[in-house]
């Protein structure tokens, strides 16, 4: 009830303020940003009260206040807030990489690869096979020859196998789950990002040879470039991770500021050297965490989680605001079977892969539920297809975004259910996190004001 009152009050306040102000100096940007944080947190709280993940609440808040419904956050504001999404992706990737310890990879690596191989192959075959089978009803496959329908379906399927590191990390951060289901899911999701790009590159090359695009230069994405995007990301990410490790070893100050700067710097660097942002920062996180002493790496991770918290809220709210409900409504007869087939393939593939890898019964039963969400790199890949085949690509992208919207909403619910059923939800997570924070306050350079007066070191610069 309280949260509903907040939402009504905030909407009323926004209606009063918006006609009185003027653009300039980022006022409107900041106003919408603040509104999204508070409104999405309120809806997130509402969804938590009915045992749904908060992420679902954030997405729904974005959908409600976005252009599809109330339009408080209009299309222009979504564009203006795009840097927040870039920052969020960078933070998520770095945090995800920092979650992986080398020792754990050695221990779980084989299992993760086995699960990934089987589930990805099955999903790819199932989705591509389904599209080919019903090609008369698929907008972008109508009036095509069988070989062209096959390669286009394979291209779609290579994007459809993508998972969402963003949702996985956000949910693990929210629940602080650390059990085998959580670890295996995270491992599969992270490694799949590399595998997906390889798979997509192969499908793209095949599509180019079977159904050459109208313009030779269309899309502008060569295989060599894609390979550089992956391996370049590993190299640059490792170098960045090394620099972070050096900082943690020798300086170790102002970690909050440093965390934001690293994310911003990493995203910018990836853009400049044309490497995959997610993979690069993931590598950076992994290298820095594994090169640093555990305590120091942990301090940076805490600082990053703190700085990421409001960014995550807005990131998912913006994702919700970007969803186009009309597309889902138009495509639902195709969408529902497509989603169900993907789910079935995920369940079967993960189960078989987990059995092959000798995983625990919990992992066999629940890991697939964490693989349903989709986002991030998938949107980029769908855009590459749309650029390459302007006539059919737009339809591929539309269908894919509609699938993604549903999976992104349903996925977190299923993952939370999996964590709950496997007994890995950590209800006392926040209290633990606060304890860590208080233990590290001096270490991270963020000195609570209450302790400043008793400190014997010089005061930090104060604004007044």
């Amino acid at each position, binding site marked *: 009830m309280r949260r509903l009152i907040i939402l009504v009050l905030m909407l009323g306040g926004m209606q009063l303020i918006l006609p009185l102000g003027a653009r300039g100096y980022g006022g409107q940007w900041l106003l919408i940003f603040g509104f999204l944080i508070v409104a999405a947190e*309120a809806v997130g709280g509402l969804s938590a009260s009915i045992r749904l993940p908060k992420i679902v609440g954030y997405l729904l808040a974005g959908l409600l206040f976005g252009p599809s419904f109330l339009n408080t956050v209009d299309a222009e504001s979504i564009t203006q807030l795009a840097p927040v999404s870039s920052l969020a992706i960078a933070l998520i990737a770095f945090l995800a990489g920092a979650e992986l310890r080398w020792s754990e990879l050695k221990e779980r690596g084989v299992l993760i690869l086995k699960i990934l191989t089987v589930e990805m192959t099955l999903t790819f075959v199932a989705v591509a096979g389904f599209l080919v089978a019903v090609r008369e009803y698929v907008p972008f496959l109508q009036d095509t020859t069988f070989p062209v329908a096959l390669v286009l379906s394979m291209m779609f399927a290579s994007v459809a196998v993508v998972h969402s590191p963003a949702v996985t990390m956000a949910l693990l951060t929210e629940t602080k789950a650390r059990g085998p289901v959580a670890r295996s899911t995270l491992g599969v999701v992270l490694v799949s990002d590399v595998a997906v790009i390889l798979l997509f590159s192969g499908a793209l090359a095949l599509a180019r040879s079977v159904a050459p695009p109208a313009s030779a230069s269309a899309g502008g994405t060569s295989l060599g470039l894609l390979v550089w995007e992956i391996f370049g990301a590993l190299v640059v990410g490792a170098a960045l991770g090394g620099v972070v490790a050096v900082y943690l070893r020798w300086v170790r100050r102002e970690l909050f500021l440093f965390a934001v700067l690293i994310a911003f710097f990493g995203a910018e660097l990836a853009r400049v050297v044309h490497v995959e942002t997610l993979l690069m920062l993931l590598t950076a996180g992994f290298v820095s965490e594994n090169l640093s002493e555990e305590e120091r790496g942990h301090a940076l991770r805490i600082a990053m989680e703190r700085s990421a918290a409001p960014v995550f809220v807005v990131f998912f709210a913006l994702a919700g605001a970007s969803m186009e409900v009309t597309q889902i409504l138009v495509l639902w007869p195709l969408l529902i079977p497509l989603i169900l087939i993907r789910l079935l393939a995920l369940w079967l593939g993960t189960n078989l892969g987990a059995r092959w890898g000798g995983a625990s019964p919990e992992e066999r039963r629940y890991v697939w539920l964490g693989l349903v969400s989709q986002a991030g790199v998938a949107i980029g890949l769908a855009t590459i297809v749309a650029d390459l085949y302007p006539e059919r690509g737009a339809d591929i992208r539309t269908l894919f975004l509609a699938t993604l919207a549903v999976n992104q909403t349903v996925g977190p619910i299923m993952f939370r259910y999996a964590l709950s059923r496997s007994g890995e939800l950590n209800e006392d997570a926040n209290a633990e996190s606060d304890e860590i924070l208080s233990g590290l306050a001096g270490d991270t350079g963020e000195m609570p004001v209450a302790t400043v007066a008793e400190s014997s070191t010089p005061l930090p610069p104060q604004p007044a």
Partner: protein
Amino acid sequence: MTQGLILVLIVVGAYLAAHVVFDWLARKLVIVSGAEYLILGVLLGPSATGLIDATFLQDIAPASALALGWMGAINGSRLVLLRLVRIPALVYRVAFAESLITLFIVGGLQYFLLSWLFGLSPDRAFAPAVALGAFATLSGHAGIELAARRSRGQGLLVTTLRATTGANAAVAICTFGILLAFGHPPSTALSRPITPTEWTVITIVIGVAGGALYHLFLGEENSVDRMFISLGGVLILVSGAATYLRLSPVMAGMFFGMTLINTSRKRNEITAALSRVERPLYFVLLIFAGASWRLSAQSVWLLPVLLFVVARAVGKFGGARLAARLNDVLPTLGPDWGVALLGQGGLIIALSVNYLYQDTLALPNLVFTTAIISVLLTDLLSGRFAASVIPPATTTMTHPMPHRAL
């Protein structure tokens, strides 16, 4: 390489270098750091190397607007009524008398000088004069805390100095906020124009409503994570609303912080959450302010700046002495106690950036230049100024409390 990338590299490198060097200087020479980031900003900005251009400054404007609100909130969160009522009324009389004397001396002199020098009409000269008066009122507390800790002083002098810096901030923020309400461009959205009083009330309401919203939003939440998200979210909303309405985010933020700290049982947690990003935002603001600096187009700009520095010194020194004499505490506080108030502190940067945002007020570059020069002249030595006044603990504690204070 992109501008953003270059900026991050330079800022990180310079930040580390400056931080290490200035930390050492602070320990050894009682110097307060902060001004070095301002210089760094000037060096990076269009006026020097041009590594940060006007477009980029526009891009990071929201971050600096947030920093303004955040600084206001931090100042507001220091105004805990339960603690304030324990301080003797005498201390407030001295503190507010000193604040108002400085405000009127500097504001009045600037008003006449600016009218005469630039041929401004009384209406046009009013805004920069009052803004400079408000800036002059401000005193930094970092230097005082540094000196107080070194000498372990806790007597009436230190209490008065702390109360005076608080009063200075409150007077300056409110004066500046009201000034923006008076200088507000007319709004065409309503059937009648909104009056300055109404704009002032709107500024206060934004802050108070933000504080109330935070409580409604959070209830009795214990998680620091949630508290931080809520605090950040509401403060972004408050700063954004004030900036969007062309009001003072510093004043709205101050009322937000004040409401929050006086209505919550989790004061320490709120203060900790606020202080968590205080430094990063403050550095962003300093670098932004330095980069935004442009030499005033007026060829005689040095005269108002000189007048500001001199009049402020007179106001602080003489005003403090006069305020103490009027309240019979001059023997206790000492004749030179106002010297400890000469350090400007960072709030002046926030207010001057806020002034720069207003397109309708006169002489923005001159006002901004004056603020920057004053910080550069006084901030580094603010610890030394305070140390010259605050005696060792044993001496301070032996001073009897004046009769009127009891």
